[in-house]
């Protein structure tokens, strides 16, 4: 019996669309024929709003883009402004930024591991991932008083210095994460169900991944070594010794492994940055009302989700003329249809999860 093609609406309220994403699916029984993401449910007009704020006032709003990695957004925006205004950031501030950004990467990847496993049905992993992430959020709270929308990086440096007790606390947190990670790996790595749900699912070849503009862990899982931290080092990333983990197959399982390995690498980077923390100021002297002569700057960083870039145009006033954000989730989501076609409906959930999208960043 031929089964009629069904149009299926997944979202905007659905347990696993990670926010208010709507997917218009066309399925033949359970096989996916077409996927069309419908965006805009969270569109707040950030880019328009930024044009009416001073350079400094934009920073806390960047927290609300990728709310799972707010410090990465802060960092990308501040680096772009500093490039435009020619502000030299003290070495110590650069190291503090690295510590914060890598902790944020840890938090984001741990949360991702939990979400992803929960989408596949392993609900305990969600809580284990969050438990480890909670430790990091506690560090952020200790550092500057907020957990999620941290606003810890300012134009010119970081909001405050890392003091000895906080450094000690970060070190204990770093020691705890591998233990939690070991639990997660014991639950998932070898598990036959997990492997069946992830190995070979949502494959994308290296060439296709580049064509679709994929960045971040999904791209590296396809075997393309593109990591902004290493290729165009910013904020003293060149000082640290770390590896860029690569996958081979470009499937969901490789994305999982790449992210887990990135967690280990981030722990290494934070350790090195804390060990080598130079003396100096934690921020450059930057006037609160920053006036930047006309110009344009583009700066990219490697955020947990992928390559995050800001283009900023100044017009001589204290407000930017135009800020354009290159959001990794937005571009990564484009390849969803390519990965999902011909797979089963259940896999859409896993593939979507493996891309690690955040709707705050997609809809801006």
């Amino acid at each position: 019996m031929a089964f009629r093609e069904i149009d299926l609406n997944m979202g905007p309220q659905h347990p696993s669309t990670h926010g208010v994403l709507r997917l218009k699916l066309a399925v033949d029984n359970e096989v996916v024929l077409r996927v069309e993401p419908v965006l805009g449910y969270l569109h707040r007009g950030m880019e328009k709003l930024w044009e009416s704020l001073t350079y400094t006032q934009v920073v806390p709003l960047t927290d609300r883009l990728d709310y799972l990695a707010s410090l990465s957004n802060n960092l990308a925006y501040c680096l772009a402004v500093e490039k435009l205004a020619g502000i030299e950031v003290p070495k110590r501030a650069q190291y503090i930024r690295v510590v914060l950004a890598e902790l944020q990467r840890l938090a984001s990847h741990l949360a991702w591991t939990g979400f992803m496993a929960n989408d596949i049905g392993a609900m305990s992993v969600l809580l284990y991932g969050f438990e480890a992430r909670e430790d990091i959020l506690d560090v952020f709270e200790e550092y500057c008083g907020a957990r999620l929308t941290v606003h810890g990086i300012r134009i010119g440096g970081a909001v405050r210095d890392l003091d000895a007790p906080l450094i000690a606390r970060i070190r204990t947190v770093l020691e705890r994460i591998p233990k939690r990670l070991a639990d997660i790996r014991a639950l998932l790595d070898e598990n036959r169900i997990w492997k069946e749900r992830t190995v070979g699912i949502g494959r994308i070849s290296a060439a296709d991944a580049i064509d679709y503009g994929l960045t971040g862990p999904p791209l590296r899982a396809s075997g393309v070594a593109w990591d902004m931290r290493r290729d165009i080092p910013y904020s003293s990333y060149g000082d640290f010794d770390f590896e860029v983990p690569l996958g081979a197959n470009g499937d969901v399982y490789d994305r999982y492994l790449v992210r887990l390995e990135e967690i280990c690498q981030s722990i290494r980077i934070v350790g090195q940055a804390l060990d080598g923390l130079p003396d100096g100021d934690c921020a450059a002297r930057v006037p609160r009302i920053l006036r930047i002569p006309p110009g344009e700057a583009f700066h990219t960083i490697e955020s947990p989700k992928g390559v995050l870039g800001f283009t900023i145009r100044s017009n001589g006033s204290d407000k930017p003329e135009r800020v354009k954000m290159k959001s990794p989730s937005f571009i990564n989501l484009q390849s969803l249809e390519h990965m999902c076609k011909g797979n089963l409906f259940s896999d859409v959930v896993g593939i979507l999860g493996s891309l690690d999208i955040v709707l705050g960043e997609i809809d801006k």
Partner: protein
Amino acid sequence: MPAALVDRPELRKALDALTGRFADAVLGGAVEAGEISVRLRAEILAPALRFFRDELGFSALEDLIVCDEYQAPVEGGKRFSVIYRLYKFPGAVRARLAVAVGEGGSLPSAVPVYPSANWAEREAFDMFGIPFEGHPDLRRIYMADDFEGHPLRKDFPLAGRIGGL
């Protein structure tokens, strides 16, 4: 300054190849801060993108940026400048292609060359109202289909809609 950003002779060579190929359609070109920056006539955008991709090896489109030059129109009163940022790796080389387009004018779509331009062009269309010819599916991406106006244009009010609150 990291090694990747130092001025490199091959960039200049690439720029020369571009001007040699498209001659007077290249309005200005420079190599600054480790990236090629050129301003092109809109007519040669499609072949120029193809040239960058196929012959210079810029395999990825990093970003597509539109700016509304409301106060100071460029190139004979054209209102928008559209910037294509290309990336070449390994090697971490960037290129910046700028074209100008007037209100009501259109640009050739970059999707046949860089498939990742798909949503970026839809966003530009949604936010600025620049049509891209040859785009497979040019619809609004963020705003509702029946929304009037293009929010990121400078004359669009920050609060409310066109024609008042």
